[in-house]
């Protein structure tokens, strides 16, 4: 086979492969996923938690990450400063929470620069 034909065939294969790969990723946002949270995702707790702690599947960059907590009326809860106790962990302290439903919104940047975001709910039932 001529060298030129080989190169053209190679280029065609590269383009096809790139289209397959890039096309397949459109619905996926990023790389650091929430591994687990405290309070647990969707849980109901009797006593209001003192903090929200999130652990991710990859190390995250705290300067480019945030955690927000909102109450049942979508009002922001005044959380403390974002802490980074471990490379994969982020934490914010909470004020004493009255009974009710809360939503945690998180947006993080993994150390390999990919961004993810998500949210989950928990409920404080009270004693």
């Amino acid at each position, binding site marked *: *086979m001529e*060298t030129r034909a*080989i*190169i053209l*065939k*190679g280029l065609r*294969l*590269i383009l096809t*492969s*790139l289209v*397959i*790969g*890039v096309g*397949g*990723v*459109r619905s*996926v*946002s*990023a*790389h*650091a*996923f*929430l591994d687990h949270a405290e309070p647990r995702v969707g849980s109901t707790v009797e006593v209001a938690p003192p903090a929200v702690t999130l652990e991710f*599947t*990859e*190390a995250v*960059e705290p*300067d*480019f*990450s*945030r955690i927000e907590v909102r109450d049942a009326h979508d009002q922001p809860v005044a959380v403390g400063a974002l802490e980074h106790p471990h490379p994969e962990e982020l934490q914010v302290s909470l004020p004493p929470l009255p009974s009710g439903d809360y939503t945690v919104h998180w*947006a993080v*940047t*993994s*150390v*390999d*620069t*990919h*961004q993810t975001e998500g949210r989950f709910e928990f409920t404080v039932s009270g004693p």
Partner: protein
Amino acid sequence: MTPLLAAIGCLDLLSTAVFAGGVIAAALITLPSPRDRRVVQWAAAVLALDLVVQLVVFAARMSAQSSTSGGAFWLELLDTHWGRLWVIRCFGLALLVTLRVGAGPRAALAALWLLARSFQGHAGAHGTLPALIDWVHLLAAVTWLGALLRLALIGGAIAPAIALRVRRLATVSVAALVPAGIYGAFLHVPSLERLAGSPYGRVLVVKLTFAAALISIGAMNHFRHVPRLVRRNDSGASRRLWRAVRFELVIAVVVLLLSALLGVLPMPHEAMM
């Protein structure tokens, strides 16, 4: 953003491989011809430009997530894991381009410089061992590509001694590349379900198919073309080897581009399945 990141990643890996491969080939194969030097210089220039673009794109992506602006924002950016390694990569590239030392020390420096790239990507986000194994994989791939490129750029007949040197280096590279690649594949895609059910897994399958083709062509060169060149040392044998190497290079570039694509795709996780 993903197609842009993929394009930047492809250009990064390709120019890094051609540049570092050329530097390593100068120490392990033969001193470069003026043509080889030009190719390596072009690769360095493309990589320098790509690194600048990477920083600008990173800044654009991060600006919405930051509470700072101006100089403080850029300092914050360069103080991240990725930012510190970006500085090391830029400094290393400048050093490799300007340093006037022998081919051996320069190749050793290039090999060490590749570490920064391994720590910057997926593997680096998963810890030191995955990053080190990724580095072995990258170093072996770059060495193999550099050796092939050196052969492909030979204008006339290929000397049997050079062909034998490339054959030895390619064999050592494959011996390091395959186990490191298998480790990486199992680390990132631990189950068959995730292999078939995620974009990362599907691109990995395409990459492995091309890699298998690449190793097959390499085996043909190892067992057929190079021994024939050593036995006969005529222009026909040299031309056949040269053609096979050019074809091998095209496949190697495809494998590199697919590897770069894997670098921007999310690894399959149970949250995605």
